[in-house]
């Protein structure tokens, strides 16, 4: 799987690094907590999706409310954003993959 490069151009290398930082707790595992790097990575993924679609502050909040707590990766958050703002996605030529 290609490493996440932080790009916002819709290429495959927009895919996030699945490690999400050190010490990330996998579903069903115990004892490991998410560190600062993992949280920064999550911040970046959501911001990148917002920038990619050109979301307003109002829209970014709505996206946050829709995805928060679900532990989605980049593609999951992008898919949610496209579902919420299909006109913006269409205008930017972004399709759900």
């Amino acid at each position, binding site marked *: 799987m290609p490493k996440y490069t932080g790009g916002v151009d819709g290429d495959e290398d927009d895919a996030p690094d699945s490690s999400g930082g050190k010490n990330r*707790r996998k579903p069903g595992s115990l004892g490991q*907590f*998410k*560190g*600062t790097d993992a*949280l*920064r*990575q*999550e*911040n*970046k993924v*959501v*911001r990148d999706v917002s920038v990619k679609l050109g979301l*307003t*502050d*109002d*829209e*970014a*909040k*709505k996206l*946050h*409310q*829709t*995805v*928060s*707590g*679900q*532990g*989605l990766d980049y593609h*999951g*958050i992008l898919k949610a954003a496209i579902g919420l703002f299909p006109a913006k996605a269409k205008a930017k030529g972004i399709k759900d993959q």
Partner: protein
Amino acid sequence: MSTNLVRAVEELVGLPMWAVVAGSGTGSVINLLFGEAIRRSEPINNPTLPASVRDCDASHSLFIECVWRLDGEAEIITGAWDDNQSDGPMLSGLTSLVGDRVKSVWLGHPGFDLDVLFESGKTLRIFCDQINIEDGNSNYSLFLPFVVHTVGCRGQLRESERGTI
């Protein structure tokens, strides 16, 4: 425009906080809901949210994208870099604010850091650390019923119309 922001943050005083949106997948970014619950035109499709948030948005809310910390009177309760999983300290700490009312606010200059003091004695401290113009990240947005006040990158203020809830 900073006068407008001062007036806007003062609108929080006296309002109860009734929900928080934060958790896995959205890093340190949090959304605190105050004031009245207004029914959404369409529910939010997020099974991790309480029904009150899925069905309603808040008349007033803080959407915080910069660093923050929640202090008790004698100890730190949680902060932006605590574990954000459902059983982690971030959510348990923030949830302790539910039902608490805003007692006062303090707005700093020139960066517009914001302290929100609650009746319980807890203080939410918002540190506007987003100053890199290249990144262009916002610090926080205050949503009022019809307008959104945003402290953008490097203390740049903007106001925008709030969309349909």
